[in-house]
C-alpha cells in the first residue's frame, strides 16, 4: 500500500490547512499521479484539483509532487514515490483557493504585461506574413509553453516579488515575441522590460529549467532578453 499525503484546505470549513493521508493500492502499476488523485476523489469527493486534457497539453494540473513542481497527468508514480509515500501540495507561492487549486491571477497579470501577441502595423498581406526557416527555428523551445505555472511558482524571485518580477514563464513568452521576425515592436517591448525588477530580478537559480514539464529553458530566454537590453543600453 502506498501512502498519499495531500494538502487539504477548505476556507469555508478549515481554519488552517492540513495534510491528509490516504492509503492507495496501485496494484503494481506505474500509474500517473493524476490517476491516483482521480481514484482518491471517488473515495473522497470533497478533494479538489484542476485537470483537463490528462496528457500534458493543457497545463491545468500543475502541482507540487514530492517536493517538485510538475504536471500530475504526466508524472508517473515511480518518479514521485519517496519511502513508499507521495506528498502532494498545491504549487507554492500563490494563494490557495481550495486543496490543490491555486489563485493564478498574479501569474496571468504578469503574462498580460508582456503583451503576448504579435504586433505588426504594416498592411496585412493577402495570405500570411512569411518567415524563413531560420527565422521560424528561433521560436522553437519558446512557443511550446503551456502556461502551467510550474516554473514561475518554483522561482524564489517570483515568490519574493510576484507583482514586479515577470517570472520565467512570462519572460519565456516575452522572448518568444522578441525573437519573432514578424513582430515589429521589439524596441517598445524592451523598453517596458528595462526596469530593475521585470527581467533583472532573475538570479539564475534555474529551478524553472529543472521543473518545466515541457523541457523548456526559461533561463536561457531570460539571458537572451538581458543581452538585448544591455546591447540597447551600451
Amino acid at each position, binding site marked *: 500500500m502506498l501512502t498519499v499525503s495531500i494538502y487539504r484546505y477548505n476556507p469555508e470549513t478549515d481554519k488552517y490547512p492540513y495534510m491528509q493521508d490516504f492509503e492507495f493500492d496501485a496494484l503494481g502499476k506505474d500509474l500517473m499521479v493524476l490517476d491516483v488523485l482521480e481514484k482518491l476523489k471517488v473515495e473522497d469527493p470533497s478533494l479538489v484539483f484542476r485537470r483537463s486534457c490528462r496528457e500534458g497539453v493543457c497545463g491545468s494540473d500543475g502541482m507540487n509532487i514530492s517536493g517538485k513542481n510538475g504536471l500530475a497527468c504526466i508524472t508517473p508514480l515511480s518518479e514521485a514515490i519517496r519511502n513508499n509515500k507521495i506528498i502532494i501540495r498545491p504549487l507554492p507561492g500563490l494563494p490557495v483557493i481550495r486543496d490543490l487549486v491555486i489563485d493564478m491571477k498574479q501569474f496571468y497579470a504578469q503574462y498580460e504585461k508582456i503583451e503576448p501577441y504579435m504586433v505588426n502595423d504594416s498592411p496585412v498581406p493577402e495570405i500570411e506574413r512569411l518567415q524563413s526557416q531560420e527565422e521560424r527555428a528561433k521560436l522553437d523551445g519558446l512557443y511550446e509553453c503551456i502556461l502551467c505555472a510550474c516554473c514561475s511558482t518554483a522561482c524564489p524571485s517570483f515568490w519574493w516579488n510576484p507583482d514586479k518580477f515577470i517570472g520565467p514563464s512570462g519572460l519565456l513568452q516575452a522572448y518568444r515575441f522578441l525573437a519573432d521576425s514578424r513582430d515589429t515592436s521589439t524596441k517598445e517591448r524592451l523598453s517596458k522590460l528595462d526596469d530593475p525588477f521585470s527581467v533583472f530580478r532573475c538570479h539564475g537559480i534555474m529551478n524553472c529549467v529543472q521543473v518545466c514539464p515541457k523541457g523548456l529553458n526559461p533561463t536561457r530566454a531570460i539571458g537572451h532578453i538581458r543581452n538585448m537590453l*544591455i546591447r540597447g543600453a551600451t
Partner: protein
Amino acid sequence: MTGLTLLFLRSGSNKWLLQRFAAGIVLSYIMFIVYLLIIHREMDYYEWVNLNKAIPMRFFSFLTALSLSVHAWIGMWCVVTDYITVRLIGPKADLIRKICVFLITSVTTVYVLWVLKVVWSI
C-alpha cells in the same frame, strides 16, 4: 543622490552594467596589487608609500573604493528588495526597507569618504 543618478539607476540594464563594470575595476586593482607584490618582492615601506603617493595610484585606489561601494550598494539593494517585502514580513516592510537602504547608503558613503581621506593624506 541627484535626480539624474536616480533616473540612470531606474534602468535595470544600467544597474546591471554598472555593477559588473565596478566589479571589473575592483578585480583589476586586486590583480595589479598582487602582480606588484609578486614582481617587487623586496619592496620596502618607503617604496610602498611612494607608490601610493603617486597621483595615478591615488586615483586608482579611490576609484576602486568607489567601485566597491557602488557594487555593494547595488547588491545590498537587491537583497533588501528581495527579502524585505510586504508580502514576506508584513506592512512594516516598506519602512524597514527604507531604513535599511538609508543605512547601506550611509555606510557606503562614509566608506568612500574615509578612503578619500586616507588616500589623500599619505
